């Protein structure tokens, strides 16, 4: 591979999270009875006309701004023609040569460290097609038009990606941005995010692009990665064998079970879509003032928030990234800080406990781990009222109980005490019990002290602060721990 370089561009279709369709008032809920989300416009009945959904435009602009794109004041809708039973009008309304957004970029992290900016060519709006459900081994098909007319944006990247891993990272980052600003739920399983990959290879140092193949039917980020790797391997193998001419411009389908691709159509039989401006729709005008209004109503973007978390709260990069994976996580974390929790503890408890609880219960963070309870718990730990280990061990049960933390730990007699005489007695008891360990420590094996701290804590029922225990141990043993 090292003497070859892959050149990859991605086309991502993203369903906008609108209540109704792109050009009509029919709702577009997922998973409903076939053909229950349709109306005269969706069905393409004679005389029906499209009207642009303002919410779709708003979400499309949000997407553009979250990806640093430039929103055009004037753009237009075009008709793209082909015959297929899931396309009621015989054409799809899309944007051909004047998309509503040009440019933009997504910054990805590279595996070996560092970052790379992937440029976007354009983003345009369009309507989705319906679905065919093939029956009886393909003898006949049923048409479901629920999805027909659902608003989509298509995000087209420049051919800036150089590996399957970069493509994967690009998708993760893209999804983070789009979900963050509420544009889409980005569920590949439900089809609200779809990705086609254009892949070619060239010998390192060659400026000219190779012949590209477009791969479709990629239904997960891992499938995108696997399909690209497969395609690169195949093209490189052909090049090495002197058979590169066998790589022809074509569209392939990825088979996720066989982990291979098969050719769907070649360039020679590519369709002529006969694009022309849709005469039913006037030019789409998005005034600069509207764009600014949308921008000012947008939340702080994840990349910016991530950087701020690092600088403002002195968090590690990985922690900042995890806390900005989704906006509810970031909001949760900062709500803990607003409640007086120290940043480090808030970050740790959010990452280690709150996210785990939410994932286990398939519930939002604030439901699985209510903020007031988490904040109180963290403050108990911060103020040495409950030992961290105790708090951790009791965490799931505490949240399940719904009790206030202080009451919970009081009832369990796990509130730490500041009684120095009792501490001294306890530590003395531990030293007496663990003569062997004491001998180890005295002979210089200081790491064995952890065992003594543990025994002391156990004897105390978690009621003393481990740091206090450690200090008392050092004092009684006459060593520096």
């Amino acid at each position, binding site marked *: 591979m090292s003497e070859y370089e892959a050149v990859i561009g991605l086309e991502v279709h993203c369903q906008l999270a609108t209540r109704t369709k792109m050009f009509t008032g029919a709702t577009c809920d997922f998973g409903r009875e076939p053909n229950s989300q349709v109306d005269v416009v969706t069905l393409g009945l*004679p005389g029906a*006309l499209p009207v642009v959904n303002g919410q779709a435009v708003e979400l499309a602009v949000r997407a553009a701004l979250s990806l640093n794109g430039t929103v055009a004041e004037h753009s237009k809708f075009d008709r793209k023609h082909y015959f297929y039973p899931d396309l*009621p009008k015989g*054409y799809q309304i899309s944007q051909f040569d004047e998309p509503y957004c040009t440019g933009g970029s997504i910054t990805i992290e590279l595996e070996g460290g560092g970052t790379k900016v992937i440029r976007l060519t354009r983003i345009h709006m369009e309507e989705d097609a319906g679905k065919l459900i093939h029956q009886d081994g393909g003898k006949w098909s049923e048409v479901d038009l629920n999805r027909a007319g659902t608003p989509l944006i298509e995000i087209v990247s420049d051919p800036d990606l150089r590996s399957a891993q970069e493509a994967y990272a690009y998708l993760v980052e893209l999804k983070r941005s789009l979900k963050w600003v509420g544009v889409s739920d980005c569920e590949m399983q439900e089809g609200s995010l779809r990705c086609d990959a254009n892949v070619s290879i060239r010998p390192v140092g060659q400026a000219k692009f190779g012949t590209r193949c477009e791969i479709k039917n990629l239904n997960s980020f891992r499938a995108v990665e696997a399909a690209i790797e497969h395609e690169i391997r195949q093209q490189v193998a052909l090049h090495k064998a002197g058979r590169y001419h066998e790589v022809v411009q074509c569209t392939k389908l990825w088979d996720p079970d066989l982990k291979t691709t098969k050719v769907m159509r070649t360039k020679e039989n590519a369709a002529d879509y006969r694009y022309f401006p849709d005469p039913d729709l006037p030019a789409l005008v998005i005034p600069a003032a509207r764009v600014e209004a949308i921008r000012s109503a947008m939340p702080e973007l994840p990349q910016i928030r991530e950087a701020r978390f690092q600088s403002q709260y002195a968090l590690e990069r990985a922690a900042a990234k995890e806390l900005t994976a989704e906006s509810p996580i970031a909001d949760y974390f900062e709500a803990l800080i607003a409640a007086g929790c120290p940043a480090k503890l808030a970050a740790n408890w959010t990452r280690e406990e709150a996210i785990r609880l939410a994932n286990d219960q398939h519930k939002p963070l604030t439901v699985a781990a209510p903020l007031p309870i988490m904040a109180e718990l963290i403050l108990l730990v911060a103020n040495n009222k409950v030992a961290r280990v105790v708090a951790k061990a009791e965490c799931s049960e505490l949240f399940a109980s719904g009790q206030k933390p202080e009451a919970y730990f009081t009832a369990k007699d796990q509130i730490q005490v500041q009684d120095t005489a009792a501490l001294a007695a306890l530590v003395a008891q531990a030293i007496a019990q663990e003569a062997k360990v004491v001998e180890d420590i005295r002979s210089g094996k200081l790491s064995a002290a952890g065992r003594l701290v543990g025994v002391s804590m156990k004897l105390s029922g978690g009621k003393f602060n481990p740091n206090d225990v450690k200090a008392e141990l050092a004092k009684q043993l006459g060593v520096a721990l």
Partner: protein
Amino acid sequence: MTTALQIASAVNAGTSARVAVTAALVKAKADTTNAIIRVHEARALAAADAVDARIKAGEQLPLAGVPIAIKDNLNLQGVEVTACSKILKGYIAPYTATAVERLEAAGAIVVATTNMDEFAMGSSNENSAYGPVKNPVDPTRIPGGSSGGSAAAVAAGIVPLALGSDTGGSIRQPASLCGVVGLKPSYGTVSRYGLIAYGSSLDQIGPLSTTVADTAVALQVMAGKDPRDSTSADRDATGIGSLPADARAALKGLRVGYVAAHEEGLAPGVRARLTAAKEALTAAGAVLVPVTLPHERFAIAVYYILATGEASSNLSRFDGIRYGHRTDSATTLSEVYGKSRVEGFGAEVQRRIMLGTYVLSTGYYDAYYKKAQQVRRKICDDYANAFASCDVLLGPASPTTAFKVGEKTSDPLQMYLSDIFTIATNLAGVPGISVPFGTDEQGLPVGMQLQAPIGNDQRLLAAAAGIEALAL
């Protein structure tokens, strides 16, 4: 014949709507011109009773109890609508077009559906799956098209008011040939929602009637923004149908533009009436202003690129999958499309779909469609320049009077030339109206066309009422 306004006045005064509606139903069923293809008796009688109830409850409706007929490309809920094409045979509309809905809300009652050229493609009403329409003035002649059925229904006295659609003259040319008033409003004045599209950027729904006053009231009722049609204009439609008390007197000082070149190639009878109209206007105090429309000579070429391009796209939905005709003999998906469409569409429609598909194809788009769009803008500019020096434009609506059935069917280009004076109107989006102005030497009706700047439908109607007064 009784006018729409007379009927409405009687019904508003307490006469049952059933009187006029029943009379219209009887005449519709007795129609010998093939103008009427469907009669909606039960629906119309129920609607008449509903109008009576509203009047009893104290309402006054501008079109109370007025029987109307609508062209077969307008959706009417629960009623078969086919655009006179085999491909839509048996298709029942699940909703009503905005224009029809507004007329019904104003008290009008749809008694019948009228014949037309298939998908509004034609100038003689000979391209209909329901057979040709005869001109009531002379049954050996065509009524014009594509709204030939609507023009004939009004001319034959079946209904006082009918709806047509006009993409390149489809209201004005048949109105002229049948001797009735026919209006194509400014693009965007009347919602296209529910009109089966032919050329979306050109199509407008408009009324045909025996008087300008009836047309004016119908326009007043239909005009105005419709949120379901993005191309319907935001213009204020208040008073759009109000006419001067003395239409003849209002001509005084009106600057009437005319294009001298329009006189060339006119049938002598039409030319004589045009001259008479100019003389009468001058006598009434109007000022005749010569103007030019330098790019008008490209109008037919531009039209047959743009309209067919749009039509090839608009008619893609008739694919045999969800509704309409589906072939019995297909074995592949591709055959379902090909055979259903070949069996369902008539020859002229297929010709225009092929032409339109060609002009939109990659490699030809720039040379044809894009170029035609550029020339269209030049034509718009021509109109703007002309209207800088005149208030309305006067000219013939058709180069000839009604021609014989079958006379031009073998020569599409000759047929296309019948719309030579009406097509530029649609390209520019301006309003145009044909008003009866006497007859030729054979007694066949001649219509004068007036045009006004876009959005000035009221000015156009006022001038048309003046011409109407002069013709008496």
